[in-house]
């Protein structure tokens, strides 16, 4: 009986790859609270939820882009976060009434960056990695030039929203969870979602099946950039202002959560719950290594080793 059950379980786990990141999250959390003998277990979780939320926002966008198939990746996320954050802070000028202007400007930046990205990919026929890299240079420069020395606090409303909690659960996390559900449904049941999945499996077949390949890819790159700009706004709201380097860690993090979360790097298969699991895992891993007193060097090495380990295990099976 046992082996049969195990086989069934293993088969289920393979069809639901998000389970691994959640198991890993649980394991890391248990190890952490075992070390602290249960002290602060709740706080660690809440903090993880808050910080994971930001990673999830950009992770979802990156997930959609990666799902478009091999070679598709958005490297302009950090620059967009910084520029959108700076623009929102500067235009809002800490005034509630101007908040809408700031947010609209940030969203506008997202749309523009996404359009520019896909324009380069399409018109210059260059791989997305180079296109988004070139874009990121320019966006980053614009952010630096535009936001130099800004010390502007976010509008109180934005700050309140970004830090509010209901029954101990961050409001922002709830909103993003809702957004994740929308994206999950869109992937399974909307024309756009199905188109993205089809293009990721086989772009040529998708075109011949009558799918609007160009429009879908364009929309996906815009979506990713818009999500990055939203992340820039809420992140500055949360941390009391925009900083030029605040997007830097999200380049690697966004790709890492996509890979660890069970989205196929070969394209055509996306996984929303996995993004959450992986984002929580990444944060809790760092917390655990900190609790254990690991040096920054060890933390970096562990992160890299885990990313590589996951693609060695998961990526190989796809091929």
């Amino acid at each position, binding site marked *: 009986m046992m082996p049969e059950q195990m086989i069934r379980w293993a088969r289920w786990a393979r069809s639901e790859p998000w389970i691994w990141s959640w198991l890993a999250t649980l394991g890391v959390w248990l190890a952490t609270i075992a070390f602290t003998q249960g002290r602060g277990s709740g706080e660690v979780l809440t903090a993880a939820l808050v910080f994971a939320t930001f990673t999830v926002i950009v992770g979802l966008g990156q997930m959609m882009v990666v799902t478009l198939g091999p070679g598709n990746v958005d490297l302009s996320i950090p620059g967009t976060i910084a520029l959108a954050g700076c623009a929102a802070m500067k235009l809002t000028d800490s005034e509630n009434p101007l908040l809408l202007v700031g947010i609209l400007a940030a969203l506008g930046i997202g749309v523009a960056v996404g359009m520019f990205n896909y324009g380069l990919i399409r018109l210059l026929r260059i791989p997305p990695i180079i296109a988004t890299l070139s874009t990121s240079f320019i966006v980053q420069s614009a952010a630096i030039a535009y936001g130099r020395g800004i010390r502007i606090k976010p509008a109180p409303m934005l700050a309140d929203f970004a830090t509010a909690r209901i029954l101990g659960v961050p409001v922002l996390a709830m909103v993003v969870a809702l957004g994740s559900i929308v994206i999950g449904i869109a992937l399974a*049941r909307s024309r756009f979602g*199905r188109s993205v999945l089809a293009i990721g*499996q086989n772009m*040529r*077949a*998708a075109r*011949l*099946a*009558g799918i609007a390949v160009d429009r879908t890819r364009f929309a996906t790159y815009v979506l990713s950039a818009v999500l990055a700009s939203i992340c820039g706004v809420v992140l500055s709201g949360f941390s009391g202002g925009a900083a030029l380097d605040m997007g830097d860690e999200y380049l690697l993090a966004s790709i890492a959560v996509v890979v660890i979360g069970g989205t196929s790097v070969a394209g*055509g298969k996306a996984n929303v719950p996995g993004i959450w699991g992986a984002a929580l895992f990444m944060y809790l891993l760092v917390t655990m290594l900190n609790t254990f007193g690991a040096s920054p060097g060890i933390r970096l090495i562990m992160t890299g080793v885990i990313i590589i380990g996951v693609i060695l295990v998961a990526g190989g099976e796809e091929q």
Partner: protein
Amino acid sequence: MCLAAFPAISLTGATKSFGAVRALERVDLVVAPGECLGLVGHNGAGKSTLMHVLAGTLAADAGELRVGATLLGRGYSPAVAYRYGIRCVFQELSLCPNLSVAENTRIFHGALKGFGWKAKARALIGAKLDEIFPGHGIAPDDEVADLSIGKRQMAEIACAFTVTDTPLRLVILDEPTSSLDASTAQQLLTFLRTEVAKGTSAILISHLLKEILKTSDRIVVMKDGKAVDARPAAQFTRDTLVAAMGTVGEHGKAEAAPGAKRSALRASQPVVIRAKPHTGGGQELLVHRGEVVGLAGLAGHGQTRMLLQLFDGGRLADTTVSEPVAFIAGDRQTDGVFPLWSIARNISIGSFATLLSGGLLNIQKEDALAQSWRDKIGIRTPDIGNPILSLSGGNQQKALFARALASLARIVLMDDPMRGVDVGTKQEVYELIRAEAEAGRTFVWYTTELDELAYCDHTYVFRNGAIVAGLGQAEATEERVLASSFHEDSAA
């Protein structure tokens, strides 16, 4: 003669399956030294698989391969084949486009190394090109990417005949003349005879029966993965050869003959497609509503490009396609199937318009649609939620037909869709196409199976990207189609 005591190469009991499909079934093949063996058969008869087994690029499931007296065991590979002097010119391009012709020769020969290798490679390939194709116009330093498709094929053939440190024993040529013009093809065949006279063996695969009959000493006929006939070439005529190859659609032929009603379509129904191939001049493609129109000619002479041109019809100025189109791929893996999806999702992707309600796909409707088409065209699966890859090739193809036919498209473009499909499935699909055409759907059908043209109301023959002939149902005989596909350059 002592040498002739052993054959150059002998293969016994070669068997190879791809999933449920038997590509080779206990095939025996012997080639004597200094013999040119012709290999003929319809598409999917197993010729290419056999050749890949001989070249070492595909391992047979069972069978023994001997070169001379030596038995070559498990570790047979392209490298071993090279050592024993077995060379192969594949149908698809096997040159590196980023390298020069001389550099490609170097890739082919491990012995071309050390100081001055490049001069040696240049001299080697240049001399061989001069020998086979006098006046070829290819410089050894030309980058392959810059050469025309015909010149690439010439370079590849010449490369296969160059010799460095291992002897040349057997050269396998798979459709070597498909991209060559008539005079170059003649140069090659003449060279082949002189080379064979020197003791080299050759296997020649060609659709061109005249070429085979004239050039080979002996002919092996393949059918459904088996070698069904083998005789000296002199004992075959064109007709006996055709008879030995067998006809794929034999039993369907009687029903296929259309009545006078169908041939009247051309006169009575409006034109729905009007296009001239972008790839060349020639006649205009005209398709009337409810017709089944065949695109014939040798593989890769512009038929697929024509279909793609029609697929993009709405966006092109010089192409009129007045009704919505759907495309059925022949190369399922690269053009058709979404491998991660279920059968149902693979079918429904063509029908978003009918399945959307309030911006979201109605899953019940999606399943019902897939279910009804499974029953209608008999996709053999217990559950349409199963992965598409759980189906056999023929049933995957049926799913692709279901995708196109379930959609709102009134014109269906088919890109040689019966590739690698079993005979039973073929019959079912032929009937389906006929029934849909009767109901007013229009079909444009590129096929490499001449027999399938019997199901077409009108046939256009392609050569070098241009339409060179338009034939009515009764005129589209094998002779007429072949005559238009080949060497008319001499007549023109």
